[in-house]
């Protein structure tokens, strides 16, 4: 049996901005331009996946663009590594990571993406009928911690 390739544990050790700070900042954004500028900046700060890790087995289905997601659990906390070939989806992943990265199972299971994106002024982006895959990504992150 061949084991699927996984990123190194050290790759998961990165900090994300906490959700409360993020929400406070997004409340200040005057228009969509600024909101999406912030989203793309957030994506830029995230680690990138190398080509070797951009595997079909790690792909999150339901995205028009390509998106990949890895997950590990360490000492009762959950860590993610995710990437996308589009700037906005990567930024949206960043928003999800602020809510889930480094959190406990209970915290992640209690996470309500619909409410979260509503507070961010981005509820329109979460619909499953959208091809950005945000709905699928949120579901994949939550499903990853389910026993």
């Amino acid at each position: 049996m061949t084991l699927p390739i996984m990123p190194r544990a050290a790759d998961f050790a990165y900090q994300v901005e906490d959700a409360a700070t993020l929400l406070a900042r997004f409340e200040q954004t005057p228009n969509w331009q600024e909101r999406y500028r912030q989203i793309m900046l957030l994506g830029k700060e995230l680690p990138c996946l190398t080509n070797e890790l951009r595997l079909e087995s790690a792909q999150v289905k339901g995205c028009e663009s390509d998106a990949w997601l890895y997950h590990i659990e360490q000492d009762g906390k959950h860590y993610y590594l995710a990437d996308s070939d589009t700037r906005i989806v990567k930024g949206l992943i960043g928003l999800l990571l602020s809510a889930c990265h480094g959190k406990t199972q209970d915290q992640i299971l209690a996470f309500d993406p619909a409410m979260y994106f509503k507070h961010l002024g981005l509820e329109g982006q979460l619909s499953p009928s959208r091809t950005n895959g945000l709905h699928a990504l949120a579901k994949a992150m939550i499903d990853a911690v389910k026993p």
Partner: protein
Amino acid sequence: MTHLASTDSALPDSHSQIRSQFPTLTQMLGDYPLCYLDTAATSQKPQCVLDAMAQYYLQDNANVHRAAHQLSARATSSYEKVRDQLQVFINAKRREEIIFTHGTTESINLVAFGLTPQLKSGDLILIDSAAHHANIVPWQELAKRTGAIIKPIPLTQDCRLDLNAYQTLLALKPKVVALCHVSNALGTVNPVIELVQQAKAQGAITLVDGAQAVAHLSVDMAAIDCDFYVFSGHKMYGPTGIGVLYGRFEILDTLTPLLTGGEMIKRVSFDGTEFGSLPNRLEAGTPPISAVIGLGAAIDFLQLSLTPEVKAHEAELLQYLQNQLRALGDVHLYGAHHDNIGAVAFNLADEHHQDVGILLDQQGVAVRCGHHCAMPLMQTLNLKGCCRASIGIYTNKTDIDHFIAALASVKELLL
């Protein structure tokens, strides 16, 4: 762009009169008016189409062809009248040559399935490289069933069908040639009359996908002379769920029905069943009656509204769209020729088409972003996907200006 300004001023009353018949187009999306440039995916519907469908459900609702009562007679008469309308609309020889389907995809599936007994291992099927998946996959399935071989007809560098390569392929005596009239992803137009004539000279059965043509061009079966021509109602201002298969009677009558049961039989017993005659033979089950009636209203609308002046206006608007995209800078256009119909395919510099689409959507602009159900074409162009802006009879210069301004904002944000 003075030539367009003059066209717009020559048309304002009649054009705003056309546009005002489409209720969806007046809405706001947040702070922005809807700028609908996704007509190639589906057109908006004029009030007359909505009214015709409501009228059927409000007053005439009954199944067609069977019950001996007045409602059914009215419904049947409205339904069959649309077949007559279509015969005139596309200049078919006989009304029995018009088959109602659920859309272009089903129409092609009916043909590809129906031809199964007529193909054998090693037979050749030629497919337009710019084809929509609906004009590829049913042929691949036919090839699987019969052992036939698929060969794509390549494109030239400028995204037109390679006519020299086409000649070479035709010399191999293909059994089937599947073409598109207008490419859905690029808006390029094929010289179908010539292409069909050459294919027929080699004895091929010809099918032309007219899904992107019928809303913009007059299509004439006597002139094109193909064996099959297929299109959808919802891309020509009619409802979804209704499509048309035109087939030359002699060959249409040889198709094995894909769907059986319902009104398509002549006699059924447990010893065997005899199929009915065309057109019913290929219309099993209760058809989408209200959608057929809606399509009839859409044809009335097109016959009244798609005048030579309006066609010229649409052509100039597409030119204007191409020119404004070029003028914006950092925009790659794909296969954008002066004689294209309805659509422009583009990318903004090296930006992902989805990022561009999301940011245009923020400004009320509806365009399609993706592979446009033409993955082989995207592979030929070496693209993951692109954006497509497409126009319809209701599109005006303000829409184009709104779109270009929105794309300029996207450019400022991304580049």
